[in-house]
């Protein structure tokens, strides 16, 4: 694979549910090493973009390619790590941190084969990276909201993905939890990962973002560097909004 092959490519792609498109048709490309923030108001299609990428929502028009292959035929799902938006990571039945994180290792494991030492190490590393070392055997339900969110990040990392896709990782997490999460994400960026993060506002992740894609009503209205105006519109800083009073989220006129 040449350096110039995009990791993800949407070409005239529309994505939706039950045959009804909610997003697009639009074009979007993700390159290696980027940290892309997908922003926009509720209902703009941010989560749908992510779900279309991951094959969880239908591509009703156009094409989505993953690592150069059509998404419908793409088999190596371990190359994509997914951190979904979840109110709580715990299920009805108790499960330990390690068990939940280990379920993220499955795409890299042989079917019906016990976990190898390499598998175990990958799970350990994932737990360490998010700062939860020592809590492997704790039931997930007994963790704080922020810690549970970090377990979900670790789950995505256990598969050693090339691209990490996160859907509103900071939503509903208190400020301390957000700081810890931002630190975990920073460690990933520093480690050279490619990240696609759906965000309601840039918040504590702002310094890490290399590119912002703003959506409105299912279409891209801005796709470029995190300039101050964009930062002000989506940075989540109330004062900024007052200073840049004339800038509205949709129609920034900076498309391109």
């Amino acid at each position, binding site marked *: 694979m040449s350096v110039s092959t995009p990791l993800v490519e949407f070409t005239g792609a529309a994505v939706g549910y039950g045959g009804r498109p909610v997003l697009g048709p639009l074009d979007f490309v993700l390159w290696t090493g980027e940290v892309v923030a997908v922003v926009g108001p509720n209902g703009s299609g941010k989560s749908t973009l992510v779900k279309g990428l*991951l094959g*969880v929502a239908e591509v009703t028009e156009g094409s989505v390619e993953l690592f150069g292959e059509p998404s419908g035929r793409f088999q190596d799902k371990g190359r994509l790590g997914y951190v979904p938006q979840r109110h709580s990571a715990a*299920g*009805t*039945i108790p*499960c330990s941190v390690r068990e939940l994180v280990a*379920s993220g290792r499955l795409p890299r494991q042989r*079917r019906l084969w016990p976990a190898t030492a390499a598998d175990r190490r990958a799970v350990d590393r994932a737990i360490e990276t998010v700062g939860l070392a020592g809590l492997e055997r704790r039931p997930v339900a007994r963790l704080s909201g922020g810690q549970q969110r970090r377990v979900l990040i670790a*789950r995505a990392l256990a598969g050693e993905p090339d691209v990490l896709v996160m859907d509103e990782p900071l939503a509903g997490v208190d400020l301390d939890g957000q700081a810890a999460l931002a630190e975990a994400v920073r460690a990933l960026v520093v480690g050279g990962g490619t990240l696609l993060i759906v965000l309601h506002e840039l918040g504590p992740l702002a310094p890490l973002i290399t590119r912002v894609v703003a959506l409105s009503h299912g279409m891209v209205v801005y796709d470029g560097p995190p300039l101050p105006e964009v930062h002000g519109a989506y940075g989540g800083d109330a004062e900024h909004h007052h200073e840049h009073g004339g800038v509205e989220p949709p129609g920034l006129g900076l498309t391109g």
Partner: protein
Amino acid sequence: MQRALVAAVLVGVAAPAVGLFVVQRRLALIGDGMGHVALTGVALGLLTGRSPVVVALAVAVLGAVAIELVRDSGRTSADVALAILFYGGIAGGVVLISKAPGGTAATLNAYLFGAITTTTSGDLVVFGGLTAMVLALTVGLARELFSVSTDEEYATASGLPTRSLNLLMAVLVATTVVLSMRVVGLLLISALMVVPVATAAQLARSFRATFVGAVAIGVAVAVSGVVGSFYADTPSGGTIVLLAIGLFTVVVVARSLLPTAKAAGR
């Protein structure tokens, strides 16, 4: 009595093993519905003179696949479709059994509420085989089933064949229902799939521990229920389920009365 005990052990193992994933998916009543559908299978078997267990298994599996496809379609009318399936199953079974040779109210009762003492050695061979299959699949595919039942969307995103795994789970439930028919009866099957799991979940700190605990509790209540019903001259199904619920209640009460244990992070 010996055959009854063996049947009890087999059911005590299989029901919680499958029930664990059913409860995790928040489909705790699916076994109930499956039992209703199985009744028509039993009736067809009696009517046609074929083994009721085998025909019930075939009908239950078909019903399970239908239920899963309806659930998967995500249509809001799903609960109505399921209700029709379930009540059609009971009604069909009741009507057909009345027409079958040897189909009396007593026969109906035996299937609805269990008649463990009528278990034959031939039945045990079939039950043994089914239990072995259920256990092999729930243990062998535990990682995949855990992922799908815990977070189906994530499982799909990570490349697991979610639809096939859901269908497999439906077939496992159908199998367990038919397996448990003789011991607990079709009306109480869900209880044996759900209550030992709920009890173990009160005490365990991991999924694996819940699995082991649920199976241990399942076997314990099934065996003691059969023994108890023998001496107290009560129906085995009801006795087993009452013991299971009794144990669950004791565990819940004990946990709430031990605040220090709770605070210590159990």
